[in-house]
């Protein structure tokens, strides 16, 4: 073709060189916090707090500057790959969020436009925020007026910089790890969350900002597969597996290096997604992304990373989670009843109270609920996770909105959370739909504490928590000492009972190994078609047996090389014992408010 001669290619070359120069200079402008570019910052439409606005703007500037630089020194190979992979609209996947398409004239024109319009808009906006706020300090005023803001970072008061957006500079923060770092690569399980436009939301290890490329590729893979009307599920390589989950506007990705089953990882991602819903509600997530596809969700989730981190940890180490049940603190049934009735009598007058939950040490003591409402185990796990991961709870009572996805994914409940007394592990949660009744609940809690103190319940709880688990459950005393460990779940009430970890499973590594074994067995059985009901594996280390019946599920680790019938007899004896004693371990009767 005549047109495609050297002239055209020269023309193309010039345009692309221009693009790179443009990108770098844009990066520089952003770095200098050029006010003209304010329009393009990922910040909210209006602010009523000037401090917050400045901090947001500052952050936005540094982020965009960084993005532009990345964009211009973009890894050539990946670009080429993805263009090949059918993304004819070029690097747009990556560049669109940065506002520029380095390869096209279109992009450059866009830039010019933004530049022109930007200036006037910024002036308006900063004026608005200035007017709304009366007490502006000096540095604030200087900042809103000046265009050349080099000195801004040094001049800003520390508390503005410490805005929740800024990642803490703690050296032990897992998010400080770099992707190139061997430690990062060696992590056994990764979890990433991103928006469908490729914006990072969460990464378990390493800073999301430094992994923009990786997030981009994940988004690209998912969207390429979606283009052909299909859904990405998993990638398998060696011992590793990567699981993808698409949830509305969010993409969740789990990477495991230890041969985890896909079902387990999907289960984990579902928990993580539920945690996000629990912070924001489904409705809000959908609304935000409907309005702005490339919204940076991290701004709304700031502070929740801790919750997700803890949830992942919790999900991997707590046996009751992966079988989908709840473990309770063991105690005589009469004692549990007296606590429940104390709660009922204290709280029954409070209108709009839906649940009252008493927990300790990641386990349930008792639960009281309004008629017609019920609490699903996975919602309860989110509550346990919140209690366990909030340090500030230790000293103060908290009033926080929380959404329970299985209860109502679109609305918040309001939770009054506090420990009964300062030196007990028992934590009380009062969940209501009424935003206004904090003081009423606070008062109710005081009353309840008094009552429980009076009837000795608190000291009973403390005693139970202090006493070694073997006082309640000793495999030796039941006469099944050949059973080394077990997890039992009642399928009707979702109660779970597991034996304490004794040698040879008393170190975290050994326990982890056992749980991995349980986990692969359990999910393999669920996953197979037709479903499997019984599993018996004998190996030199131990026998792992899993039985699933209509009434219960049980996972057992036993001494190896036993006679098959003998081991089944032992399990039967154990099950009979559990069923006889289940009042102590299980919360079978959930009283109404």
């Amino acid at each position, binding site marked *: 073709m005549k047109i495609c001669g050297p002239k055209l290619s020269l023309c193309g070359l010039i345009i692309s060189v221009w693009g790179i120069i443009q990108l770098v200079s844009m990066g520089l402008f952003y770095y200098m916090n050029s006010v003209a570019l304010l329009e393009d910052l990922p910040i909210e439409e209006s602010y009523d707090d000037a401090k917050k606005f400045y901090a947001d703007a500052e952050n936005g500037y540094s982020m965009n500057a960084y993005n532009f630089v990345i964009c211009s020194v973009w890894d050539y190979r990946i670009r080429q790959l993805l263009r090949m992979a059918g993304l004819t609209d070029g690097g747009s996947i990556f560049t669109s969020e940065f506002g520029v398409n380095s390869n096209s004239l279109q992009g450059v024109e866009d830039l010019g436009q933004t530049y022109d319009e930007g200036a006037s808009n910024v002036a308006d906006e900063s004026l608005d925020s200035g007017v709304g706020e009366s007490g502006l300090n000096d540095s604030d005023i200087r900042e809103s007026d000046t265009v050349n803001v080099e000195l801004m970072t040094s001049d800003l008061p520390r508390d503005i910089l410490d805005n929740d957006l800024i990642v803490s500079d703690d050296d032990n923060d897992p998010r400080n790890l770099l992707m190139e770092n061997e430690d990062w690569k060696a992590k056994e399980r990764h979890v990433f969350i991103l928006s469908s436009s490729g914006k990072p939301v969460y990464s378990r290890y390493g800073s999301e900002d430094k992994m923009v490329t990786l997030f981009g590729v994940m988004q690209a893979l998912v969207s*390429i*597969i979606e283009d052909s009307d299909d859904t990405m*599920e998993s*990638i398998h390589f060696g011992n590793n597996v990567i699981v993808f989950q698409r949830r509305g506007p969010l993409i969740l990705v789990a990477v495991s290096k230890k041969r985890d089953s896909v079902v387990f990882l999907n289960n984990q991602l579902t928990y993580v997604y539920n945690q996000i819903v629990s912070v924001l509600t489904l409705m809000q997530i959908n609304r935000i992304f409907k309005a702005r596809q490339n919204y940076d969700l991290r701004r709304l989730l700031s502070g929740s990373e801790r919750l997700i981190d803890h949830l992942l940890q919790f999900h991997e180490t707590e046996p009751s989670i992966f079988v989908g049940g709840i473990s309770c603190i063991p105690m005589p049934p009469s004692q549990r009843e007296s606590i429940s009735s104390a709660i009922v009598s204290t709280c029954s007058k409070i209108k709009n109270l839906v649940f009252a939950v008493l927990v300790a040490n990641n386990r349930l003591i008792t639960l009281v609920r309004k008629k017609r409402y019920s609490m699903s185990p996975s919602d309860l796990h989110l509550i346990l996770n919140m209690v366990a991961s909030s340090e500030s709870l230790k000293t103060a009572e908290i009033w926080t909105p929380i959404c329970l996805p299985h209860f109502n994914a679109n609305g918040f409940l309001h939770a009054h959370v506090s420990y009964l007394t300062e030196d007990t592990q028992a934590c009380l949660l009062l969940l209501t739909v009424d935003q206004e009744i904090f003081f009423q609940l606070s008062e109710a809690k005081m009353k309840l504490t008094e009552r429980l103190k009076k009837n000795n319940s608190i000291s009973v709880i403390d005693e139970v928590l202090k006493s070694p688990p073997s006082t309640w459950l000793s495999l030796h005393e039941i006469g099944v000492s050949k059973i080394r460990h077990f997890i039992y779940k009642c399928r009707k009430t979702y109660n779970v009972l597991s034996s304490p970890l004794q040698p040879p499973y008393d170190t975290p590594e050994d326990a982890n190994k056992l749980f991995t074994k349980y986990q692969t067995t359990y999910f*393999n059985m669920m996953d197979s*078609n037709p479903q499997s009901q019984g599993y018996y594996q004998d190996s030199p280390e131990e026998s792992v047996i899993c039985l699933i019946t209509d009434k219960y599920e049980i996972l057992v680790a036993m001494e*190896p090389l036993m006679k098959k019938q003998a081991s089944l007899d032992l399990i039967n004896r154990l099950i009979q014992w559990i069923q006889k004693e289940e009042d102590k371990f299980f919360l079978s009767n959930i009283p109404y408010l």
Partner: protein
Amino acid sequence: MSVLRFSSAIFETCDVHYVFDPAFRRLEDESMTQRQPSKVSPKNFFIYNVCYGETEGQEEEKILFFHPRDTNVDVKMREVGLSEAIVKFAENFDAAECDAVHTKKTRKLFLQPEPNFWMIMTIHLPFGPRSSEVLEGSDYLGGDVETAVYQAVLKQAYSTARLFIGPFQSILDANNGDTTVLKKKLDDFFKRYLLDLRLADCDILNVFDGVQFLPLDRTTFLRSQCFVNLVEATFPVVSHSLLMYDGNLVWSGLNPEDVKVVYRYVCNSLLPKHLKANYLAKMGSSGSNVRLTRFVTGPDSLVDLVYSDKTPKVYLDKIQRPGFFHLVVYKVHDLVICLFLPKNKDPLRLELYRQLDVFLNERMSELITEIKSYRKSAPEQTEAPDTRYVYFNTMNLATKDSLRERKGNPSSDALVRALVRLHNHNVNLSKEGCLSSETFMRMSTDHWVIGRMSNFRQFYIAVERKKLSLQEVDDVAKRICENKLKGIFFHV
């Protein structure tokens, strides 16, 4: 016994073309009247080399082979690009090579058989009702497809291709990096290979890809070995040989890796074809006495004046001097001998075939009588019809199975799939250093599958008998083990 047959359907007219034809697949989907799930079918199959087409706009050079051939270039590029992107993405986390990608509707299998060469196969998952009890709604049945099976199918495709055209890189090297010759060779080979590939029939035996050995007593075995030695001594031009009886290997002078490829080719493609040709020849010339040659590969007739060299050339790899060989296969009744003669410029002469025929015919007939008499003295015990087993020894690739007997029944197929699962599980265990285990699994259909692993031996049993207790199943398994694997000690 692999299902990867090269037109193994012996007397069936060849209508396998639909396998790769998307239009046909659609027809199949609609006509299945909702109740039977569609079968696994291939979507595409391609080979590329990452070293080519690195400059923009010339990425197409990467592609060495793409099936279906009439695919739009853009689609081809997109598929290759996606595969490359996935491989690159995975490298971020671990150096392990990419094995498979699962999507809702497809499975994509990856294989890097030689550095920089990637073979990718995409298969459609079956689509239909989740189980026979469910009356409404259809789903993609990912759970019914065991990835390991198709991974093995892909590996077999490569090893067979290598048998005929040699290592891919060496072809490139011989042509100074020009891909034209390699492309032509790949095209010639895979065009036919893929036509005969029946994915839906693949199962755990593909995963093992083993060889069945003929059980013999010491004297008969020594006699067979003597015979092979004698052949090699009399005809020094023969460098390697392989002896088979009724689809079972008797003796081989090759490395097990090479044996399994040659064995698969001879048993699943050459012999069935030969049988079919003979049958057709007999039918066609009813009455007139057509004398059939005993050479499965070689000249059509030993008296032919116009002789052309028709032996296949195969590439043997795990020997001292790897290279191409003429594969001459000679068959007397059930006894088959494969002779490997180094390939040089001159074709094999008819004279050699005549000498071979004279030498082999009588001696092989004698050997057959001996083998037969031994087989009569030690008959195989048949098992209860509701149990099926597979045995595999990873060291010598020996397999033994009774899987094929009840093929096609959906519930039995599901049990055989469960065997693959058990096998995966055992492979993982042995990677972790646990070399022996015994696993029993009871399905919701009340059938059992059992897997035993001891050092390098694996034994899997499916029991389709209801209302058995664990102890009873254990007894059943033990009995089969004793009957079928005399002298092999299994311990946990």
